[in-house]
């Protein structure tokens, strides 16, 4: 089933939830709609479910007008964040609901309904709990009932609205993996809304990053993480240090560190660079003297936050009075003899750079420069910790 969303806009009285959103969904794809709250992702999902309608734009399913199809006949499975199970019905009755409300001609026989419910209970690993009421189930169990209920009507399209949002961390991870396996088995076209980037990066074939009612970037998790297209994606996905660069002749620099070259031919006086914490190279001058000729900042290590296999370092660069975050493997801490207070040499290995508009001071998303250290001609790089 092919879905084609074009130029969807939706305004509510006080704000625009969707602004000219276009997206194509291939059959069997597993897509994450990722963005902060208020970015329009739930509105988009509700439009596809038939619970809301756009002010303009169109949705085609295999070439036919999807928006003209009544909610009841869209063959869409929808799973809500807070499950929305029918509280007065048992698990079995909840799952059978979609089959029992069909017109009698297309309604399956009683025995068939029972059999199908049993199969679904097995699929969502809830055998034996069919007689319980939603209030007697845990959050994770409720969410699986909600999923079984949505799958019972054999939908062409599965929509999940923050499916794991209300669950605790451990259940969330288990259920996430399980959902991925289920998708691999059923190959059902699935769109899920989330504000949790980890969830999106781990689960989705493709991620649609949304902000302020617009799509910022669409791409595979690798592309989104490694080649963010806009400043928003840089800041929203993963962590990033934001540095302001000034043009100095034909290159950009921040204090002692310079970026070779100027891809914009002198059109911009300032630029902003995003550097991931794991893309900062560190060297300890005491143990490994670094030639002063090599561009790097001197930084003081302020704090070490040990987070399991990774350590987050807080580095203060006096030259432009900014605190940077760097990630190193925990085992490197001892090897490099890193202590709070010690002085380090720091330099980015790669960065995503956007020029700043001279008049407005806003970053120009269209003029992205993905810089990597290999572009640097000079020899003698800083030793990497990773």
């Amino acid at each position: 089933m092919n879905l084609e969303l074009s130029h969807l806009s939706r305004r509510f009285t006080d704000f625009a939830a969707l602004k000219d959103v276009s997206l194509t969904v291939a059959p069997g794809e597993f897509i994450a709609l990722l963005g902060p709250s208020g970015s329009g992702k739930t509105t988009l999902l509700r439009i596809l479910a038939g619970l809301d309608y756009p002010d303009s734009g169109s949705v085609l399913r295999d070439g036919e007008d999807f928006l003209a199809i009544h909610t009841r006949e869209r063959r869409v499975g929808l799973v809500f964040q807070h499950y929305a199970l029918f509280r007065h019905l048992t698990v079995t009755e909840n799952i059978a609901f979609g089959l029992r409300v069909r017109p009698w001609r297309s309604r399956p026989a009683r025995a068939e309904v029972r059999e199908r419910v049993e199969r679904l209970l097995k699929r969502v690993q809830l055998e034996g709990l069919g007689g319980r009421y939603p209030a007697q189930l845990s959050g994770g169990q409720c969410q699986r009932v909600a999923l079984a209920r949505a799958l019972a009507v054999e939908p062409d399209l599965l929509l999940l609205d923050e499916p794991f949002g209300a669950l605790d961390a451990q259940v969330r991870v288990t259920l996430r993996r399980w959902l991925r396996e289920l998708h691999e088995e059923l190959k059902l076209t699935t769109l899920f809304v989330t504000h949790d980037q980890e969830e999106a990066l781990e689960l989705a074939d493709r991620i649609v990053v949304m902000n302020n009612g617009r799509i910022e970037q669409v791409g595979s998790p690798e592309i989104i993480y490694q080649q963010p297209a806009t400043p928003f994606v840089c800041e929203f996905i993963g962590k990033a240090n934001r540095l302001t660069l000034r043009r100095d002749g034909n290159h950009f620099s921040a204090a002692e560190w310079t970026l070779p070259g100027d891809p914009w031919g002198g059109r911009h006086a300032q630029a902003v660079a995003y550097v991931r914490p794991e893309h900062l190279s560190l060297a300890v001058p005491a143990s490994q003297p670094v030639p002063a000729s090599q561009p790097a900042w001197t930084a003081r290590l302020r704090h070490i936050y040990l987070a399991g296999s990774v350590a987050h370092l807080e580095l203060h660069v006096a030259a432009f009075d900014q605190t940077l975050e760097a990630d190193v493997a925990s085992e490197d801490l001892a090897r490099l003899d890193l202590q709070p207070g010690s002085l380090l040499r720091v330099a980015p290995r790669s960065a995503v750079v956007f020029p700043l508009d001279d008049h407005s001071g806003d970053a120009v998303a269209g003029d992205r420069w993905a810089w990597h250290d290999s572009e640097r001609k000079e020899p003698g790089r800083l030793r990497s910790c990773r």
Partner: protein
Amino acid sequence: MSALVSARPVAWSRRLVRGALVLLAVGFLALFLLLPLATVFVEAFRQGAAIYLTSIRQHESLAAIRLTLLVAAIAVPLNLVFGVMAAWAITRFDFRGKALLGAFIDLPFSVSPVISGLVYVLLFGAQGWFGPWLDAHGVRIIFAVPGLVLATIFITLPFVARELIPLMQSQGSEEEEAARVLGASGWQMFFRVTLPNIRWALLYGVLLCNARAMGEFGAVSVVSGHIRGLTTTMPLEVEMRYNEYDFAGAFAVASLLALLALMTMALKTLLEWRYGNEIAAHAPGGH
């Protein structure tokens, strides 16, 4: 140790305050509610059970009972339908004037019942706006049963809606949306999802509505005309007998009304006790 000792007088004075307050509340209730209620039954049976039964078996009493039941039987279902529709509109849709509709539903609580009765007289009475036209077509509203029904509907209009609105607001519309996406039609959604979720609150609202419909005096008194055996409901019958110094008869009919109130209260308490969490916390105000 010292903490324990010093805590004692505090606990003791707390208990004293609690005891005094409870005693005060019970005493107040006994004086202003239980005593009058007991008086009704004592007075009704003062001249013996035989007189009591004759008073009730009188043609006028039976007519008043029948009329009261008829008025309630028309007004309550109409307000049930209206209440559900209004609560649905207010909690499920956004529209201009929503707050105004909510305020209008409360209007009968804030307007004196006598005034609402008078309004109907002004509208449908012989000298009223529609009076002459209605008269020409042979329709009688004021001083007849339709007037009693109209006035009762007006007075009891808020009960069901006020009970449902907070509950439906807190439940939200997600379950209904889930039902629609699963393929339920509007009616299927209402009868299979909405109604089961609001049934106890609805029953509770209907109970309050019914109690008020049978007990209303002010508005009904204005539109009734007090035609014995034709347009007197039970509360009006009580007043008329009392004014005619038929105390035994007045209290006999009053005892039936009181009995009705007690039954309503018992049912209401049972519902609150059994399904308290499904009934909106704020019961409607009223007189």
